[in-house]
């Protein structure tokens, strides 16, 4: 039995602590604080500095409560403590009595409110926080209603630090939530408290920006209007906006969001709002943080390039046409190609940002109406083999972060910039619960590295080998352990401890693998190797593959790819009205990755593309765009006019993610509802209507849907037969569907509104139990190691959410979300080359040179450079192995690193 010396998480479970809260017997756990137990019990204690996701600072003193302690000298009778205690820092003690609403507690609260307002400007009419401000709220509920401060108030000048976050220091109450958020959750030390006493103010070090991908969350968690959103600045008052609970179209983690709209325009995007009293408002205590791309980049449909009506080609030009006419033209075009060249000359592409319903209909349309298996969404992979490896990974996916874990293994990848919220949740769970993080591979996410208990570094291409050795070592093969030690440079004792920890069969573990790493170049080896390790570790281990594509899992589930149907074949045949003998192409099908090749070879003659972003974001964009000219018929649904839509024979104006309904599935297999927040702009239609229209025009049967809910019902019966909820029930509780809301200012209720709660619905958790892969008997031979000279590196890469993206480029503040190319390197290498974090350098790979900002992190293995693909000119997609690169430092003049 391993003990705490192996890892601190291996400690016994904490004991129960019974105590009395406001006269009610409650039970807490040893080490918990009064406020956490109270929150769980539905007792609201006012607080500013305490946040469920952050460490305790105990500096606002608003949570003061009256505590009576059992007195051993007086027969354990509860005796009042001489001073009130802060609920956020006082641990619960057996037999204590806590009063949160006594005279003393109320007096403390109103006293503290008066102190906090001493220097507060109270310019609520100007403040963007007005209407959702904790200071306003608590002033009404706990304040005195008048101020005794007559002197001049302290005033600070306004800094211009961050382009996205406005800092108005006069309003700050010094709760340090923002500082702790940056340090602890975002993992970047960029904000701090400066000066002393009354001159205290918050700021950023060196007046730099708060630039990391999670930084926008400080806006929400700031309890006052000190940190406000710049893009949203003075655009509207919050009470004028209509809230729609929906989901992010960016983040594969499945981040839930609230879209705040007014007069057909999106004003802001925040984490889900919560019910407070009789209305919904922003959630300052949220743990459901969202990334900056979701927060600031969701308004891309409003771009001026938007085409709001369908068009058909007449001669050289695309002319606006009625939707029905476009549908007729598309049906005619597809039929013509099918008649001339057969069904397999047609292909249907589905954008990875399409909803499950659209993916399902595309699959049904391709297989039943056209009669081909050419339907796919997997464009981002390096090779067709990588797409297959990804499909293998998906079929083995299991587990959910919500169930927690006792240990987590992360293999290769820049998780924070591929699935930001998921990465944050993993790190936060491990950090808050002191669970071990184990990083394996040639590039570890620098976001996790500071918290890692074990880091096993190797060279690119060796990951599969290392995983196999680890699996053998877990099985007790000492030889494998020695080899592992040799290849990763890990010390034998450390490995022993690691094996001891992994060997705890009763523990719940999580294996996480990025399918994005090097565009999947190594996936065909890495996926089976990791699945082998999973079998070696036993039943208690789950596996979650991570992909940047928002709805990858949903489209896989809906059968929108070759080799997969939405359900069992018999059930699918029945639902689609196909007899036993009717053709149902499943396995035959061209992977999207080979599309350009097949078009060039003249095998694909007609293409229906749902969402042109899949073509724009393709690794081989230029080749694909050129190949489109060879098509005999090309129909596309999209939001914007672009060089690709110019080539279309039929263009359908698509409804954006704000304008349609549907479901998305995140990489943990949970469903999330996309809810129509705005009416479709102009004559745009959701893709499912386009598909159903064309199908009916081509005499397809079973496409008579009148709403997307019908498509969902048909699909979910195949995909998840034991799904218990409904399309409607998938929508998060919010002002639009919460019938308990009467009017603001009505009867006040207090309850567990703290946390928006659990969104999981029975049966809406998609997992496909495939048979476990066997652990290999013998590790595959180690690949030859390349000798690296001074200044030479092997380059690995991964797509970056802030990289070039068709939709992101059209967001209103795209310019600000863009980052300069960076190159991460190991401190060892940086030390040898005399480079520091933030230095500039030029990376030469073959004929290409990229200027980068050096980031020194414990992420990449020694001798490895990690360059996010898509930032600036950095583009590596298309390479099948790590290229050798020479790095040259650019003069000593240092520039601030746009870190991220």
């Amino acid at each position, binding site marked *: 039995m391993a003990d705490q010396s192996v890892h601190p998480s291996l400690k016994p479970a904490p004991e129960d602590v019974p105590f009395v809260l406001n006269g009610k017997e409650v039970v807490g756990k040893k080490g918990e604080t009064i406020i956490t137990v109270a929150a769980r019990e539905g007792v609201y204690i006012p607080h500013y500095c305490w946040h469920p996701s952050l460490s305790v600072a105990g500096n606002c003193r608003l949570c003061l409560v009256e505590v009576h302690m059992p007195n051993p000298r007086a027969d354990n009778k509860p005796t009042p403590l001489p001073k009130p205690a802060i609920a956020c820092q006082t641990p619960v003690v057996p037999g204590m009595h806590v009063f949160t609403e006594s005279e003393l507690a109320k007096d403390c609260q109103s006293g503290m409110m008066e102190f906090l307002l001493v220097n507060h*400007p*109270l*310019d*609520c*009419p*100007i403040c963007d926080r*007005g209407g959702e401000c904790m200071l306003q709220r608590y002033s009404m509920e706990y304040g005195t209603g008048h101020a005794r401060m007559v002197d001049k*108030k*302290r*005033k*600070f*000048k*306004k*800094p211009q630090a961050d382009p996205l976050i406005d800092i108005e*220091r*006069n309003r700050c109450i010094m709760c340090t939530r923002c500082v702790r958020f940056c340090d602890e959750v975002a993992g970047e030390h960029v904000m701090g408290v*400066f*000066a002393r006493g009354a*001159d205290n*103010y918050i*700021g950023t070090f*060196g*007046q730099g920006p708060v630039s990391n991908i999670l930084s926008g969350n400080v806006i929400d968690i700031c309890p006052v209007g000190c940190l406000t959103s710049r893009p949203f*600045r*003075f*655009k*509207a*008052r919050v*009470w*004028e906006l209509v809230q729609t609970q929906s989901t992010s179209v960016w983040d594969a983690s499945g981040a839930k969001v609230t879209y705040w709209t007014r007069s057909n325009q999106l004003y802001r995007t925040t984490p889900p709002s919560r019910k407070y009293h009789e209305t919904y408002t922003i959630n300052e205590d949220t743990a459901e943080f969202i990334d900056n791309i979701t927060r600031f980049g969701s308004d891309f449909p409003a771009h001026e390039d938007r085409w709001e009506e369908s068009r058909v080609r007449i001669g050289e030009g695309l002319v606006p046409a009625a939707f029905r006419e476009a549908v007729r033209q598309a049906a005619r075009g597809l039929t013509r190609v099918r008649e001339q060249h057969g069904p397999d000359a047609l292909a249907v592409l589905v954008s990875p940002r399409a909803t499950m319903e659209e993916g399902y209909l595309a699959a049904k349309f391709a297989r039943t109406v056209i009669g081909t298996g050419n339907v796919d969404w997997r464009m981002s992979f390096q090779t067709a083999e990588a797409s297959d490896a990804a499909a293998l990974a998906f079929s083995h996916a299991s587990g959910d972060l919500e169930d927690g874990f006792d240990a987590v293994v992360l293999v290769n990848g820049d998780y924070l910039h591929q699935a930001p919220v998921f990465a944050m949740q993993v790190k936060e769970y491990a950090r808050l619960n002191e669970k071990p993080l184990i990083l394996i591979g040639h590039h570890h996410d620098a976001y996790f590295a500071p918290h890692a208990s074990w880091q096993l570094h190797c060279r690119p291409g060796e990951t599969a080998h290392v995983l196999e050795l680890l699996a053998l070592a877990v099985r007790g093969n000492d030889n494998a352990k020695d080899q592992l030690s040799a290849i990763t440079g890990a010390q034998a004792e450390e490995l022993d401890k690691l094996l001891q920890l992994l060997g705890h069969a009763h523990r719940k573990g999580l294996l996480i693998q990025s399918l994005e790493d090097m565009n999947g170049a190594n996936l065909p080896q890495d996926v089976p190797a990791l699945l082998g390790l999973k079998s070696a570790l036993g039943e208690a281990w789950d596996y979650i593959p991570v992909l940047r594509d928002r709805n990858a899992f949903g489209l896989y589930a809906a059968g929108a790819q070759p080799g997969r149907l939405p359900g069992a074949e018999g059930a699918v045949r029945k639902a689609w009205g196909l007899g036993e003998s009717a053709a149902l192409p499943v396995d035959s099908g061209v992977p999207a990755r080979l599309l350009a090749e097949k078009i060039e070879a003249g095998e694909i003659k007609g293409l229906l593309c749902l969402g042109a972003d899949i073509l724009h974001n393709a690794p081989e964009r230029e080749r694909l765009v050129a190949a489109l000219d060879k098509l005999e018929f090309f129909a596309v649904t999209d939001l914007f006019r672009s060089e690709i839509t110019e080539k279309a024979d039929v263009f359908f104006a698509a409804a954006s993610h704000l304008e349609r309904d549907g479901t998305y599935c995140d990489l943990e297999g949970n469903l999330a509802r996309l809810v129509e927040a705005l009416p479709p702009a102009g004559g745009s239609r959701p893709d499912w209507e386009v598909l159903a229209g064309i199908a009916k025009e081509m005499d397809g049967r079973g496409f008579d849907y009148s709403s997307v809910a019908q498509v969902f019902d048909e699909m979910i019966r195949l995909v998840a037969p034991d799904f218990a909820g409904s399309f409607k029930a998938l929508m998060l509780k919010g002002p639009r569907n919460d019938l308990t809301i009467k009017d603001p200012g009505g009867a006040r209720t207090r309850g567990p509104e703290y946390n928006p709660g659990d969104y999981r619905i029975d049966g809406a958790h998609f997992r496909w139990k495939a048979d476990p892969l066997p652990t290999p008997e013998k590790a595959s031979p180690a690949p030859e190691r390349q000798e690296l000279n001074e200044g030479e590196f092997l380059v690995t890469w991964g797509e970056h959410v802030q990289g070039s993206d068709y939709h992101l480029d059209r967001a209103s503040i795209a310019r600000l979300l863009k980052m300069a190319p960076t190159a991460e390197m190991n401190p060892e290498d940086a030390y040898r080359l005399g480079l520091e974090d933030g230095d500039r350098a030029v990376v030469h790979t073959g004929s290409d040179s990229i200027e980068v900002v050096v980031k020194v992190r414990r992420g990449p293995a020694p001798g490895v450079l990690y360059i996010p693909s898509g930032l600036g000119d950095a583009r590596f997609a298309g390479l099948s192995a790590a290229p050798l690169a020479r790095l040259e430092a650019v003069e000593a003049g240092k520039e601030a690193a746009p870190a991220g």
Partner: protein
Amino acid sequence: MLIEFMKGFTVAGRHLVRYLTGKGSVTFEYPEVRREQPPFFRGRHRLQRYQDGLERCVGCALCAAVCPSEAIYLEARENTPDNRVSAGERYAEIYQIHMLRCIFCGFCEEACPENAIIMGPSYELALYKRTDFIMNKEDMLDSPEKGFGDYHEYDPYISHVTEESDREAMGDPWERTGS
């Protein structure tokens, strides 16, 4: 019944005599003669300015929020050094009141934290076109010709960042701490 009838005629007769003799007439020769309004008469809206010409309205939209007939529409913008419109950081770029919807309840006046909108004495609100009833900011703002507001003293809101209050503010914290 006859008694009531007689009572009514007596009143009418009394007024007839009064009118004919010209003593105590209740009507007057509008528009040559105009009636003085009581001090808190709720007539046509006025947007006030400070003595230095800055608008009082900061575009907080509280008036729009409180308006029972949803007659007010406004869009706010941020003041910049080259375009300083109001005393605060925010000003109303568009400010409209739909006078056909307005019920002259005076809630907007009451809600305004800046005493920017007040209801003036003017009750001459007839216009020929329906669209003309949408009053814009220019139609309501006090102008030098009309005179700036005489209603309130100039008291910059404590936190308003005007040049003057900037000077008053403690120096740049970055300078003070030398970082």
